[in-house]
């Protein structure tokens, strides 16, 4: 081989190496534009690795999609909730809530965590749009608002999946949601409104707090094929009901996550005459790691949806709760439940809380 040939070969090798390097090197950090649920255009960095969840619903959304990006829990995971969160994320710090009821997170502390992105999942009304804009201007951190209504779950998953750079996972979870919704729609198609269960959501230690039909706290009732008995045109949100109104409404099913209420309801003369109590249809929702039917209103409700579908329509709903819970906790919460943990959860869902 001549010297010239050597030189040419060497140059070629060098050029190839340079080419390979150029092709495979990470592109310089550049921003993409994401349009959030409120229609705001937000510049989001290409790679998002540190996400601040503005409230409990958002933390579950981020945890389900990309747990490594979650900077902390708005409320620390405690006690009996711990086994149901993957070990690596159980001890993430408590960051406080940025918005919603009792916003308390300190903006300086938010900045100290160096998030690439702030996500809020819930209401996209003007107050929250304004709040998002203010925080974004003040901190320079992109802030996206994601619609928290139950019906929008699949779209919200796709949106945040894209924002976090995990579009495939977002797509997969969104498909899972759509399949569940479609299965429910199929079994509910020929169930007339009159023969759907009349459901009362009992909140608070005396069970006399409830959510009106149309509020985010009770959406799951209608989605699972029930009818919320707390219904008055023009009234939304959490209210206090009087026992007389509950007796008058005479729900045939009561759902709650309050253990004190669930324990007391069976021997309480006030509730004794109510159809749900007489038919032993007062159901206690587990709350580990998050509530099944609400608390907070986020993706955790997908588990409750399957549970309620089985309770409301035992003949029609095909799912088997144990298998559903195992699969749900694995897919959404990144935990493989042991037999004991699964038993505990199912016992809880049948009224015997730990």
């Amino acid at each position, binding site marked *: 081989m001549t010297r010239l040939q050597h030189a040419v070969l060497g140059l070629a090798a060098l050029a190839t190496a340079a080419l390979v390097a150029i092709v495979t090197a990470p592109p310089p950090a550049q921003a993409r534009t994401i349009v959030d649920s409120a229609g705001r255009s937000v510049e989001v960095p290409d790679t998002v690795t540190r996400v601040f969840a503005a409230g409990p619903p958002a933390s579950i959304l981020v945890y389900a999609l990309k747990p490594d990006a979650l900077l902390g829990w708005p409320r620390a995971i405690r006690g009996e909730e711990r086994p149901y969160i993957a070990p690596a994320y159980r001890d993430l710090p408590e960051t406080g809530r940025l918005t919603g009821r009792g916003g308390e997170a300190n903006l300086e502390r938010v900045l100290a965590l160096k998030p690439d992105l702030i996500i809020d999942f819930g209401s996209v009304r003007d107050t929250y749009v304004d709040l998002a804009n203010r925080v974004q201007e003040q901190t320079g951190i992109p802030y996206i608002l994601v619609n928290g209504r139950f019906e929008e779950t699949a779209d919200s998953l796709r949106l945040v999946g894209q924002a976090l750079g995990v579009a495939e996972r977002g797509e997969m979870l969104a498909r899972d949601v759509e399949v569940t919704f479609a299965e429910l729609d199929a079994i509910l198609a020929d169930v007339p409104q009159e023969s759907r269960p009349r459901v009362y959501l009992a909140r608070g*230690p005396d069970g006399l707090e409830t959510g*009106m039909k149309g509020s985010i706290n009770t959406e799951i009732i209608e989605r699972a094929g029930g009818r919320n008995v707390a219904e*008055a045109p023009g009234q939304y949100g*959490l209210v*206090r009901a009087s026992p*007389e109104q509950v*007796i008058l409404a005479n729900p045939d099913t009561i759902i709650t996550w309050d253990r*004190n209420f669930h324990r007391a309801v069976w021997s309480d003369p006030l509730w004794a005459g109510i159809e749900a109590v007489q038919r032993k249809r007062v159901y206690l929702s587990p709350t580990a790691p998050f*509530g099944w039917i609400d608390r907070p*209103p986020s993706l955790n409700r997908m588990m409750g949806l399957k549970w309620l579908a089985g309770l409301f329509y035992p003949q029609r709903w095909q799912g088997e709760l144990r298998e559903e819970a195992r699969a749900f906790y694995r897919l959404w919460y990144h935990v493989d439940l042991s037999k004991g943990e699964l038993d505990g959860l199912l016992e809880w869902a049948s009224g015997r809380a730990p």
Partner: protein
Amino acid sequence: MGERARTLTRDGFRRGAGRGTIGLLVAAVALLSMGALLVGPFPLGPFEAIGRLLDAIAGRDAAGDAATTVLVSIRLPRIAGALLVGAALAAAGACYQTLFRNPLVSPDILGVSAGAGLGAVLGIFLSLPVAAIQFMGFAGGLGAVALVGFVAAAIRHGDRTLILVLAGVVVGALTGAATSLLKVLADPYDQLPAITFWLLGSLAGVKGEDIWPAAPVVLAGLVPLVLLRWRINVLSLGDEEARALGIEAARLRLAVVVCATLVTASVVAIAGVVGWVGLVIPHIARMLVGPGFGRLLPVAALLGAAYLLVVDTLARTISSVEVPLGILTAVVGAPFFLWLLARGRRAWA
């Protein structure tokens, strides 16, 4: 002093009129209670209601029957609760206003509501059952006032009354801060709404089993106040005048504070924080029968009972959901009070 003495004598002259007022008020409370028993979202005709009630008294109640449950387990305890809470708060307000010789004083002056609020909120925060929440509210109310008493006793100089009031303000502010801290720490989707509703006051969940333990405590506080009413009257003249009349002011004042606190704490524990009643009802009572405590106490108690009964009946009927009592007592009471003031027959005396 001359003005005071004249008022007292005038009060003496008004004794006969006071008795008539009390008779009228008792009749009004009885009538209102009957009326309240018949209204509510559950449809129940008056004759049917009376029939059910007689059945229940005779022990012939069909178990699980909705109408009987509504009457006996819901409306009766609730009416009893409204009467008890209204009477207790108004009586305690009358005591404190006389004791401190100040018309702007309410039963909360020594921190009883703030303390009860903190106790109950802590109970909700710890996810305790309802009875335990009520007990913690009661204990919190007593605890706050006891703390005020100790602080005031520890400071040995200055105006006794002023120090007591200031200690009440300070303890009230501290317990209020602790309550706010618990609200921040509470689960926003679960405990926070429960706390908010509790702090607004409501009789929606009141049951017979809540009334039975509270009523004896209220009575235990009210009976000594009734027995001491003429001496307390003298207390309103000031310590020196009282001593001249052979009454030991400090001891008597302590007795009044203990009794009024017991009364207030036990009702706040079952109804939550119901403002306004203890402040305004004593004024209205004073407009009716004058400042003499002997008349004032029973009239204020009866007026308070009637007022809270009316307000609570509104709270459970005007909307398809419960309206918190704390909101309604102010909304209904404030314009009425302004109207009374504008008529201005009698000023605070």
